[in-house]
């Protein structure tokens, strides 16, 4: 118990729940899910805000009922996958638009999550043995969680990388890229989308179940803003690593997640209150998404263009100089 108290104090000292690295890794699993829907399927999936706490609620409930944490974590995965399936069904079979389908599932899940937790809005896991405590007992308090999350996120990444290069995975990627084309090649695009949403939300649910074990409770409100945080991570990773290909992109997603948590920690250090973080995140995402438009604002355009022309002039001078050297050389030959 004293260890747990120490743990809680440590985390409170950081102002957020745990170190940004641990968080970046455990949320990295979620970010991989968001990457699947947002980047590959080209589908803005809001189910995440509901499937994340669903995974947490399922795992927390299962663990308090005495189920092994590994199984509980997988149950979280399946819960999330089921939620994604519902959204996919609403979108493809009932023809509800993507955003609304996600919102509907998310809204419904709020009640489901309360049911799963037996009508309580918060389910503590303080005295329970979880995957996190198991790893911390084994590998020490400092490294336990990092090791556990790094292991899971790397395995997930490798499996995803492989999957996205299989025959099925290629079809899945084409579904988001050019639906008409892949349909003409004999792929049931509805099924493809449903499977994609199930897989993505499964990862989100698994991430939720690990976060619950990490922070030692599940809370019905823990999902709010998850999508935007996930998007922020994907966009941040893309902007910094500019990945080419799938392997780079999944890597960028995970590192984007870690960077995002670092950004949040810095924002906190800079004096933002913890309650301001969602606004900071939202502004971060708006900034990143609007960056191409910002270039068209006359004032900014001028700055960018003057820089570019300066660069061009440099280039021209350099080239002329080279030519000069070349012609001199030629003359001397």
């Amino acid at each position, binding site marked *: 118990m004293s260890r747990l108290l120490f743990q809680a104090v440590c985390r409170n000292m950081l102002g957020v729940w745990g170190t940004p690295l641990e968080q970046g890794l455990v949320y990295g699993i979620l970010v991989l899910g968001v990457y699947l829907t947002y980047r590959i399927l080209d589908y803005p999936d809001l189910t995440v805000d509901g499937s994340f706490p669903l995974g947490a609620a399922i795992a927390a409930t299962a663990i308090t009922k005495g189920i092994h944490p590994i199984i509980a974590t997988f149950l979280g995965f399946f819960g999330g996958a089921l939620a994604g399936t519902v959204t996919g069904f609403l979108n493809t079979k009932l023809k509800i638009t993507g955003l609304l389908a996600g919102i509907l599932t998310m809204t419904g899940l709020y009640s489901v999550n309360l049911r799963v937790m037996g009508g309580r809005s918060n389910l503590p896991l303080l005295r329970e043995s979880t995957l996190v405590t198991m790893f911390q007992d084994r590998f020490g308090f400092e490294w336990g969680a990092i090791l556990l999350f790094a292991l899971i996120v790397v395995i997930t990444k490798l499996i995803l990388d*492989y*999957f996205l*290069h*299989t*025959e*099925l*995975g*290629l*079809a899945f*990627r*084409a579904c988001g*890229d*050019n639906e*008409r*084309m*892949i*349909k*003409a*090649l*004999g*792929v*049931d*695009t509805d099924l493809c989308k449903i499977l994609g949403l199930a897989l993505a939300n499964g990862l989100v649910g698994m991430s939720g179940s690990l976060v619950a074990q990490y922070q030692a409770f599940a809370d019905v409100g823990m999902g709010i803003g998850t999508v935007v945080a996930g998007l922020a991570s994907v966009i941040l990773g893309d902007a910094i690593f500019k990945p080419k290909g799938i392997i780079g992109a999944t890597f960028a997603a995970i590192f984007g997640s870690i960077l995002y948590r670092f950004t949040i920690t810095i924002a906190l250090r800079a004096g933002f209150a913890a309650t301001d973080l969602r606004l900071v995140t939202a502004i971060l995402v708006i900034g990143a998404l609007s960056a191409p438009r910002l270039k068209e604002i006359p004032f900014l355009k001028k700055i960018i263009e003057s820089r570019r022309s300066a660069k061009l002039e440099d280039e021209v001078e350099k080239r002329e100089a080279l030519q000069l050297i070349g012609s001199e050389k030629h003359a001397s030959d």
Partner: protein
Amino acid sequence: MLVIEKMNKTFELGGGTFKRAIRDLDFTAAKGDFVTIVGSNGAGKSTLLNLIAGVYAPDSGNISISSTNITNLPEYKRAKYIGRVFQDPMMGTAGSMSIEENLAMSIKRGEKRGLKLGVNGRREQFRTVLKRLDLGLENRLKDQVRLLSGGQRQALTLMMATLTAPEVLLLDEHTAALDPKTAARIIELTKEIVSDNQLIVLMVTHNLQQALELGNRTIMMHDGEIVLDLFGPERENTSVDSLLEAFSRVKKERFLDDRALLA
């Protein structure tokens, strides 16, 4: 053998107006037939192709390929019989994926897709296939398709549509969006590929010269019906002018707009 019997399709345009796009259409094409389809805008050419491909279901009538009735099959299940090239070069390939990945997808046309790596062990085959296009694509297997020009993309699409030798190949004005030189190259490729595989080809075109030169049969559509079916010696003796005349005779009035459009 492609057989279409008594097919009808009406579109609701909204506000209580309807358009009969296809009227009691009967059509049969045998293996090895290369049919060019001409007709003015709204004649039902693209609708016919879309009905064969399964983009829409007909209101009535039957479609069968090699005596398999495909009338009620969804589009994705017809894929194993039908290859398609669209007018828009962007339409037939996945731009964010590499050339080899696009080919790997098309090689599994209409088949079950599993958890085997899609590209592995097929690169040599892809190179051989791409070499035939003579565009240097065989050295760019890992390049994203969006880096290719429209003509290159259309050539790749054509290759992908015929890689698994489907029974029917649908070409919907597949050279219309290309510059004349590239278009000519794509037509050459079309000829080569078609002569290698015994397919049924249906090709929509607005170029009457091309319609008469390519293939062995030309049909003219008007208002959802096939109004002219040319083949054999009769077709050989048809010139663009006589085709245009037939066209205006069919419409029973002079359509200067169409003349300008088609000439």
